[in-house]
């Protein structure tokens, strides 16, 4: 018997490395926004957009305002469904820009 651990280590890529695998063309401006910033700051205590996002696009600054790293976005649409206040403004990046999956 050897003493190798019984569960092999799986080296999971960091989110940054993961996002790096996706071909991306910057549309130049954010295709994501919020309707009313006040909702995010005053009403929203759960930050559901932040919790659901698989690409760490949504963060909130210390004033509770959302900061949107739109260039990480994988265009899944989850934040649009997740926000309980229907406060996410979501458009497709123009003319095919944004992500291009090679495998899918």
């Amino acid at each position, binding site marked *: 018997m050897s003493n190798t651990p*019984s*569960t*092999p*280590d*799986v080296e*999971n*890529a960091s*989110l940054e*490395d*993961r*996002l790096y*695998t*996706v071909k991306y063309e910057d549309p130049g401006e954010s295709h994501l926004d919020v309707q009313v910033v006040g909702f995010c700051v005053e009403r929203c205590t*759960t930050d*559901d957009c932040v*919790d*659901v*996002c*698989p*690409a*760490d696009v949504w963060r909130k600054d210390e004033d509770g305002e959302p900061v949107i790293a739109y260039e990480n976005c*994988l*265009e*899944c*649409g*989850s934040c*649009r*469904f*997740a926000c309980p206040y*229907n406060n996410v403004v*979501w*458009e*497709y990046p*123009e*003319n*095919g820009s*944004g*992500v*291009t*999956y*090679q*495998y*899918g």
Partner: protein
Amino acid sequence: MTTDTTEQTDAGGGIAADRTVSDPDYDDAFDAVVVGAGLAGSAAALTMASASLDVLVVERGTSPGAKNVFGGVLYTPTIRELVDVEDAPLERYVGEKRFGVLTEDDETAVSIQPGAWRDDPHNDSYTVLRGDFDEWFAEQAVEAGATLVTETTVTGLLRDDDGTVVGVETDRPDGTLRAPMVVLAEGGNSLVSEGADLKERPERGDVAVAVKEVLEFPDADDAIEQRFRLTGDGGAAYHYFGDGAVGDAFGGAFIYTNDDTLSVGLAYRIDDAVTTQPNPAETLDHFKSHPAVAPLVRGGRTVEYAAKTIPEGGAEAVPDLVHDGAVVVGDAAGLVLNNGVHLEGTNMAVESGYYAGLAVADAVASGRTKAHALADYPRSLESSFVVKNLEHYEWLLNAVEDDRDLLFSELPRAVADAGAEYFRVDHAPKHDHAANAKSRLFETVGGWRGAAKLAWRYRKVIS
């Protein structure tokens, strides 16, 4: 054949000769505009073009498939009738299906490998990568006469005075395009259909967030064959449930074998994603590190990370499929079966695109494009497997919701314990172990009566 709007007057369908590249005027050059070149859109386009309609397919990606993500296993019963799947970019046929229930550190699994799956047509189940497959499938529609424009997003619908849909707006300069019929095949994030009030935005309890990685094994050429015991073109579809897969969320995880990559991912309800469950990327890390999963994926290099949503509201969540001048197909219409054992959307997308295409062709031929002239589409769909399956499993969503703790946490734990007890190798007689195993299970489900109730409630999952 992928063309851009600015250079596509010679591409396929019937654009009149007096329209030039510099002055494109496609108004009413087409009988139908299809929004989205996914599976549903290309199936509809192919069907309509084969019925001699002039069809324009508008796709937002740089090529069909560029924006698409799935597990996954493509189910081909209807595709086979439309195109020659032998030529399609298929990865492997599914020769084994495996269902594993994971607790934090145990696995209890069932594997199915019917001999018939090894023979043509392989139970019509193949792993594919959508980047390749969707592009190929759209090409088949183009070969049948449809015109495809890419890198163009439909941003809204045009309506005439009485509200009939009469074309689309796009994000191209002078991007409006009039046509008698519009087929909405835009997938689950259906901004156009919602924006035009053809459907409501689904509740977040009816939508799952999904993440997926494609893994390569640069240091071990035969890793996939070895680990999944594959020969030839045979492949495997592994499905996982329970705490070790997606925590206490409602959903599941998967591993599918492609030709020389693995597709590894998971999906769970957005309702759960916003509460206790760690975010999707961390949930994926956790799943891949499970003791029963790690040996299958270790050493894999991530060549792509992707995310998508799955509409899973079942039959109750399907919106009106026909409108004056428009039809809704595939994921845009919520036509996905996701009940734990089955995750099927590809066959329903193709089936709905096909029936919608037939109905639109008939309607256009008779010059009538109001909803009632399109009624053959929902009628055909209702008598096909698509709606039957959705309705057949409607009860399950509700039952699972009521029993979720039992099903996803307590029962897997008990099954694993019982399994360990049943096969325990020590000095006690086998029948003692069997008795212990049985009582461990019974304790969890509530004795004979509880077991009988559960069995009755879930009897239809596999029927």
